[in-house]
C-alpha cells in the first residue's frame, strides 16, 4: 500500500507492507537511523518520535497509521546546522553518555514543549518516565530539559 504523510516538514509518500512498523519504515526504508530500537515492546522509549505533536513509541505503531500525519524524528529537530535548545542543553549539561537513549529523550522532551512551553520538573519527569537511560542516572537529563524550559 502507499501512504502519504509529512516527515520532518517534507511531504513523503512511501510504498509499504501492511504489517510494517513505523520504526522499520524510518530506519530501513528511509534510512533515518537516529530513531533507535531498544526493546520493541514500548518499554524503553528509545524509538520515540512525534506524531501530530504527541510523543509515541514507533515500535508500537504500524506504518500505515501514519497516513496524513505530521511526523518529526530526531533528524528534524535542528534547523540545519543550528541546534535546537534541547540539543544544546543536552550537550551543555552532559545529558548524554552512550547516546542510544538520546534521540528518544529529545523527542519526548520536545513533545512536552509543544504542549507546555513552561513545564515544571514534575511535568518533565512525567514526560520522560517512559524513556530509560542506563548510563547517566538522569540528573543531567532533567537539568538539560529544565534549562531549555527556562530559556
Amino acid at each position, binding site marked *: 500500500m502507499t501512504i502519504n504523510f509529512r516527515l520532518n516538514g517534507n511531504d513523503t509518500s512511501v510504498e509499504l507492507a501492511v504489517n510494517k512498523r513505523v520504526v522499520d519504515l524510518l530506519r530501513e526504508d528511509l534510512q533515518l537511523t537516529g530513531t533507535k530500537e531498544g526493546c520493541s515492546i514500548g518499554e524503553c522509549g528509545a524509538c520515540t518520535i512525534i506524531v501530530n505533536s504527541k510523543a509515541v513509541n514507533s515500535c508500537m505503531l504500524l506504518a500505515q497509521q501514519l497516513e496524513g500525519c505530521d511526523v518529526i524524528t*530526531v533528524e528534524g529537530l535542528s534547523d540545519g546546522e543550528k541546534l535546537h535548545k534541547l540539543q544544546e542543553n543536552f550537550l551543555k549539561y*552532559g545529558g548524554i553518555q552512550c547516546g542510544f537513549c538520546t534521540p528518544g529523550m529529545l523527542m519526548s522532551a520536545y513533545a512536552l514543549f509543544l504542549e507546555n512551553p513552561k513545564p515544571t520538573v514534575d511535568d518533565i519527569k512525567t514526560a520522560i518516565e517512559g524513556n530509560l537511560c542506563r548510563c547517566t542516572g538522569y540528573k543531567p537529563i532533567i537539568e538539560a530539559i529544565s534549562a531549555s524550559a527556562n530559556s
Partner: protein
Amino acid sequence: MKNYDLVRHVKGESKFVDDILTPEGCLHAYVLYSQIAHGNIKSVNINTALQMEGVEGIFIAKDIPGENQIGGIIQDEELLASCKVDFIGQPIAIVVAKTVALAKEASKKIIVDIEELTPVIDPRVAFEKGELIMPPRVFSLGDVEANWDKCALIVEGTVESGGQEHLYLETQGAFACPVEGGGVKIVSSTQSPTTVQKTAAKVLGLKMHLIEVDVLRLGGGFGGKEDQASQWAAMAAMAALKLNKPVKLILPRQDDLRMTGKRHPYSSDYKIGLNKEGKIINYEVTFYQNAGASADLSPAILDRTLFHCTNSYFVPNVKATACSCKTNLPPNTAFRGFGGPQGMFVIEAAIYKAAEKLGIDPCLIQEKNLLAEGDEFSYGQKAEQCMAKASWESAISKFNFPHLKKEIDEFNVASKIVKKGIALMPICFGISFTTTFLNQASALVHVYSDGSVGVSTGAIEMGQGVNMKIRQVVASVFSIKIDRIKNETTNTTRNANTSATAASSGADLNGKAAQLACNNILNRLKDAAAKYLSLANSDQIEIKDEVIYYENKPTRLLWNELISSAYMQRVSLSSHAYYAPPGIYFDKDKAKGKPFAYHVYGTAIIQVAVDCLKGVYEIESVKIVHDFGKSINKAIDRSQTEGAVMQGIGWMTMEELKYNENGRLLTDALSTYKVPDIYFAPKEFEVEFLDNPNDSLAVFNSKAIGEPPFMYGIGAYFAIMNAMKSYKPEKHFEIISPMTPERLLLSLYN
C-alpha cells in the same frame, strides 16, 4: 571544546552497528536457542526450515569449519551446542534469510530433540555436587584460627546477592562482510575487538590477520560486551563466509535477555570477630559464585571478589575462600565492578550485623577500621597514598553527617509509617587488570600534512567518554586545538592484540599510549622546527597554543607551517606507541603480589525514605566525596559517577532476576525486569572532588572512574535497612539483595 561524538548523538547522526548502511543483498541471521536448561541433544532437523522461501542457509555445530569453542580463560564453551545443552538460551543453530522476520519464522520450523536432565540453579547445590568451574581460591592474611580467642564479639551469618542484567540499551550485534583472500571484516558492538577477532579466527579456522574487526561505538557495555560480544560476531562471520554475502546479526531484546550472562549472583557465609574497641580482628568468608554453565570470565571475577572482600577496611587476619559453581544458567560475565561489589556487600553486611549486636550505628565500626597508609591487603599489597580516612572525614564534614543523622532521628520519631534511613559507604577499588598481562595498550597517531590529527587506540567508546579524554591528551601534548583531532574507530588492523576496554582502565592505558605516541612525534617536530628556524638545537623549542616558541619566546612558526615543513623535510609524522604500566605483578598460586597500579577511594552518604506499609522507597539523596586523582575532564567523571551509583543502587534495590526451577528466566522483558527510571533517580545528587595531591600511574595523574562509584550503591541497601530498623527495632533482618518492595514487606511482616 565541542565533543563531536555527542553532537552527532543529539542530531541522530551517530551510527551504531544496526545503523550502518548495509550493502545490497545483505542477509540477516537469527539464532535458535535451547528451551531446555540441561539435556542431551538427540537430533536437530533443519530440513523443513531450509526449504522455506527466503532462507539462504542454516548452520549447526557440525558446519563450523574450525573449532566449536569460544571459551576464553577455560575452553569449556561451544559456539553452537553439539551434543548437550546447559542453559536456556544456548545457541543451537544460525538461520540466515533475506529478512530477520523470515529467519525467525524459519527457526520455528527447526526440530530439536533433547533428552531432558535435571538442571541445577543454586550455586550451593552445585558446590555439594562438586560442580565447580575450577578449584576454590583462597586469599589469606595473618592467622584467623589463632585469633578467634582474642575477639570480644563474633558474628556469623549468610548473605545473598542477586544478579543483574546489563541492559546496555543497544543489544548485542555484529555485521560481517566477506573480503578477498578468504577473510572477513566484522563490525561489532564489542568492548574487546581482539577477543572477537581471536574467537572468529578459531571458529572459522583462519589466521587472525584474515579477520578485521572494527568498532565505532557502543550503546552501552558495562562489561556485558567484554567477552559475550564475540559469539554473535563469530556467527555472523561464519554465515558471511559460508554464503559469501554480507550478514547482519542483531539480537532482539528478549533474546539478548535470555541468552546472555549477567552479573553473578553470590551466596556467602561470613564470620567476623571484633575486639572490645570495635576493631575488626578476624574475618572469615566463603563465597559461592553462581557462574552459570561455563567459565566465561568467572575465574577472574572470582579473584576480584577476593581482592575486595575487605573493602576499605584493614583486617589483620583474613581467610577468604571463593568457589565458582557451575549451574544451568547462561554463563554469567563481567559487569561493572567485576565481582568486587559482591565481595564488598558481604563485609558491609557483617559490619551491619556486628553493630546490630552491639546496639550501635554501623558507621562507628566502619570508621574505626578504615585503611591507613601502609596497611596490608590480604593479597600482600600495601595501601599507598591511602585516601580512605581523608574521603570519609571529608564526607562527614562537607555534608554535615551528624546534622543529617539528627534530622532523620527526629523525623522518625514524628513519623509512624514513613521512616528515613541513612548509611555511609566507603569504597576502595584497585585499578589494573588483575590478570597482569592484560595491562597493555597501544596507540597510533597520524599527523596529516594539513595539520589535522587522527588517533587510534585500543579503547572502545561506550559512553564513558574515553574518546574525548584521549583527544584531550593529544591536544595537550601537541598544544593544539582539540578540533584538529579525530578519534578513529577501534580497529584490529591499526591496533593489534588489544585488551578489552574494561577494568576501568580504558583511558589510563590507552591515554598513556597516545601520550607516548604524541611525544615521539613532538620530539621529531622540535628537530624539524629547529632546522626550519636555523637553530642549533631543539632543546628550547616548545609548542604553545599552536605557536612554536624558542627560549620561551614566540617564533613566526605556527603549527600548520611546522607540519608542512616537517613533511617536506621528510620527517615521519606518524607514531605507534605501546604502554604497559610498570611494577605490577601477581602470583596466582601464592595469591600475593602487587596487582594494582593504585587504588581509588571515596565515601558516599545515602539517604532514603521508606513507606513501611506499602514497601516502596525513595532515594532522597546521594552525597559523595570521591578521589578522582587529578581529573582530566570533570564533567565526564561526574557523569560517570552518577551513572555508576544509579546502577549500583538498582542492583541493590529494584533490579531482580527471577528464574524458575527449570532454569527459565521469568524476567525476560523490560516490562518485568525493572531498572531505575526517572522517578527512581535520587532527588539530590552531590559529587565532591576530593583534593588529592598525589601523582598516580594513570595518564596526567588522573584516576580511573568507570567502576569504583558503582559500589556506593551498596549504601542504599543499608540505608533502607536502617529505615526498616527504625520501624521495627526488635527485628533482625536477613541480608538478601535486591531489596525490592516485595522483599521489604516480607522482611517487615514475616
